[in-house]
C-alpha cells in the first residue's frame, strides 16, 4: 500500500486486500453456509468457500500485476480445491472477469458492473440455469444491473449489497429449480438459496474493515 490511493479504480494490491477480507469473512460464515446448504443439499458450501479462499491465500502476496492473470490465479484456487458446484461457478465467473481484464494492471470501479455481467453470462452458460431458477445467478444479475454507473468502490459495493438483499427477499418464497435443492422441491420455498447467501457474504466480507 505504498502507492497513493486511487479512488476511481483498483489494481492488484486493492484486489489482494479485498480477497484477504473475503477469506477472513468466509471463516466466520462457514458454519452458516454449511447449515443452509445442509437443509437443501449436501451441506458443504461453507467448506467450499473456506477451502477455495485458503487455496488462494498463499498467492495473494505476489499476485501478477496483470489483473487478468491475477484473477486466473484466484480461479485456479477454486478449481483445484473442491468439486462443488459453487466452487466451479466462482472459478467460472473469475475466469470471465479475467478475460475482460487481460493485459491491464488497473481498472476503473465503473467497469465492475461489466465484469459482473461477464461473469454472469459465463456462469449461466456453464451451469445451464436461467434467471428465476433461484440460484446465485439471480443475485449476480441484479448486482450487475444495480452497479451500472457506480464509479467508486463504496458506491459499487453499496449498490451490489442492496440489490442482492432485495433479490433474496423477493425470491425467498420461490421454489428452487436447479442443483441439489431442486429435488427438495417445495422444501426450498421460504428458504434462501445457499449460493445467493454465499454471494451476499462475499460482499459483506468486502465491506468489513
Amino acid at each position, binding site marked *: 500500500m505504498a502507492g497513493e490511493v486511487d479512488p476511481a479504480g483498483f489494481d492488484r494490491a486493492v484486489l489482494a486486500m479485498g480477497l484477504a477480507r473475503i477469506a477472513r469473512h468466509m471463516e466466520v460464515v462457514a458454519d452458516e453456509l454449511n447449515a443452509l446448504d445442509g437443509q437443501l443439499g*449436501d*451441506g458443504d458450501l461453507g467448506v467450499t468457500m473456506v477451502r477455495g479462499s485458503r487455496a488462494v491465500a498463499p498467492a495473494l502476496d505476489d499476485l501478477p500485476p496483470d489483473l487478468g492473470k491475477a484473477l486466473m490465479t484466484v480461479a485456479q484456487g477454486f*478449481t483445484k480445491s473442491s*468439486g*462443488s458446484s459453487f466452487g*466451479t*461457478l466462482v472459478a467460472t465467473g473469475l475466469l470471465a472477469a479475467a478475460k475482460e481484464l487481460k493485459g491491464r494492471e488497473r481498472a476503473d470501479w465503473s467497469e465492475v458492473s461489466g465484469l459482473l455481467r461477464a461473469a454472469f453470462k459465463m456462469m449461466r452458460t*456453464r451451469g445451464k440455469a436461467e434467471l428465476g431458477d433461484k440460484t446465485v445467478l439471480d443475485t449476480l444479475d441484479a448486482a450487475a444491473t444495480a452497479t451500472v454507473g457506480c464509479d467508486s468502490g463504496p458506491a459499487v459495493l453499496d449498490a451490489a449489497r442492496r440489490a442482492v438483499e432485495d433479490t433474496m427477499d423477493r425470491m425467498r418464497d420461490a421454489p428452487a429449480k436447479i*442443483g441439489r435443492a431442486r*429435488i427438495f422441491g417445495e422444501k426450498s420455498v421460504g428458504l434462501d438459496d445457499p449460493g445467493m447467501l454465499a454471494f451476499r457474504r462475499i460482499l459483506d466480507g468486502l465491506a468489513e474493515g
Partner: protein
Amino acid sequence: MKKILNDPYAYVDEMLAGLVAAHPEHYRLHGDSGRVVARATPGRQGKVGIVSGGGSGHLPVFTGYVGKGLLDACAVGDVFASPSVEQMADAIRAADRGAGVLRLYGNYGGDIMNFDMAGDMVEMEDIATTSVILADDVPSAGPAEADKRRGVAGMVYAFKIAGAVAEAAGTDLAAVTAAAQRAADACRSVGCALTPCTVPQAGKPTFEIGETEMEMGMGIHGEPGIRRGELRPADRIAEEMMDILLTDRPVGGTGRVSVMVNSLGATPPEELYILYRVVKARLEGAGAEIVMPLVGRYATSMEMAGVSITLCHLDADLEGWLEAPAECAFWKV
C-alpha cells in the same frame, strides 16, 4: 450405521490407496491430486479414451470400471461429491491416447459443470472431448423431462458398450461417442431403498426411514423417491419395479434385453436371486429374450440396503459390444 474407517476426511484417499495396492495389475494413480485412477497398462496409442468420474461411495462405480474394454481413467470425488475440475482434467489427460476422449458419466449438475470446464481446459492442450451423460433413473423425472433424470446403474452398460467400441481397431471418437449414446438411450433403471447409508464426513444417515418401510424410486444419494410405504414381499417389489420400467419403455425391437438386478450395498445376493425369478418372468411375459443377466453389486451406495433394476434394450450391435471381453478388478466378461 457402523463403518470401518479412520479419519472420515481420509476415507477416499485411503480407499484409493488400498484399491491400487490390491490391484496393481489393473489400476494406478495418475497425477498429483491422488484422485485420478488410470489403467495400469494404458490402451494402445491411437485408441479413443473413455473417462468417467463422480463421487465416491458407489464401488465398483466409477473407479472400479477402469480396465481393458471399459474405462481408461476416472476422476474420484469425495463421497457423493463431484471431483474437482482439475482432477477431471487430469483424468482426461490420463485417458488421452491421441484420439480424443469421451466423457461418460451421470446426470448430476456439479459433475456436468466440472466435466465441461475440464473439457475447456484440455481443449487448450489439443485434446478433443465429447460427452455422453447417463440419465437412466426413470422415477427421477417424467418422460417429458427425461433429460433431467439422474444417472444410476445404467452407467455400467454404457461403460461396457463404449469400452468395447473404443477397444476395436479403427474406431474414432465420433463412433465411440455414438455407441455410448445408443447405450445410454437404451437403459432404464429404478431403485428401491430400504435403509440409508452414512457419508463418512457427515457422520449421519443420508435420510430417515421407518423400521418396516421402503421407498420406491429413491436415488442413490438418498434423493426422494415416488412412494414410501410398508416393506412389501419380494415378488410385489419386483412387480412394481418392472411395471415402472416397462411402462416407461416397453420391450420392442429385437426383444433382446439385458437386465441388471443390483444390490445398493447391504442387500445380499440371496435376495437379488429371489427378485430375479419375477424379473425374468415379467420380461419373458413381455416377449423379451434375456441376454447376459447381471445379478450382484454393480453400482452401490456403500452400506445402503435396497436394490435397483436396470434394463438395457439391445440391438445386434449393442449386444455384440456388451458381450465383448472386458476386465477390471470387479468384473470380467
